[in-house]
């Protein structure tokens, strides 16, 4: 459809930038971005698993990277992206049943996804640091 050759000047639907940014729209974009980010995270998981399979030396390298500031930042973003996409996905599964599609529910779901994804991510990291004996 995108490469259909036609000289006719047809009316186009308004482009995305013409709309006032809205929460629900941002959530839709965030679901896509987090999904794509999870693909990068999948690569990190593969690296970790392959390192465990290969031996102690590669594992030590992966561990030191994940322990570094860059590694921790990457893992923090990945964990948030993963949880955000999971909660956003649950929202979509609820919508698939035909419920929660009214305006109020959509707004509530959006805020619930944002807040609970942040809370859960922080909880996961607090648990992680607690298990390391940081507190």
């Amino acid at each position, binding site marked *: 459809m995108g490469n259909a050759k036609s000289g006719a000047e047809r009316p186009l639907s308004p482009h995305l930038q013409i709309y006032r940014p809205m929460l629900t729209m941002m959530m839709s974009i965030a679901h896509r971005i987090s999904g*794509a980010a999870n693909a990068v995270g999948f690569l990190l998981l*593969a690296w970790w698993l392959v390192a465990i399979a290969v031996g102690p030396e590669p594992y030590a390298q992966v561990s030191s990277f994940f322990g570094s500031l860059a590694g921790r930042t990457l893992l923090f973003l990945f964990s948030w992206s*993963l949880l955000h996409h*999971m909660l956003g996905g*649950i929202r979509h*599964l609820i919508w698939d049943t035909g419920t929660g599609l009214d305006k109020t529910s959509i707004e509530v779901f959006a805020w619930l996804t944002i807040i609970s994804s942040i809370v859960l991510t922080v909880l996961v990291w607090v648990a992680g640091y607690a298990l390391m004996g940081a507190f």
Partner: protein
Amino acid sequence: MATPLKRVRGLGAAHRGTETFWRQRVTAVANIPLVIFLILSIVSHIGASYTEVKAYFAQPIVALLMLALVISAAIHMRIGLKEIIEDYVHGGAKVVAILLATFFAAGVGLACVVAILKISLGS
């Protein structure tokens, strides 16, 4: 007369009907407990020694859940990436991008599968 039923039986132009939609939902549902399992596995092994981590993944139930996760996630990722590509990339570049996304999903997924099998079944 072309009724909606007739069109549904023909499964549309792609001959796949709602198969991809459904597969994305099935893998999504499977991914929920499996991702929680993954996060718990990682968090509970922060700072663990190589032997501890290896012994953990060598347990049959852990290997089974990890295999389920990487296979389900790879399928889910392939569907999602293809959907994004189809929206933003057009023409010949679209075909190349979908091919690359497919190889990426298969490659990363299979690397994980081989790693998990090697850890659990020994070298």
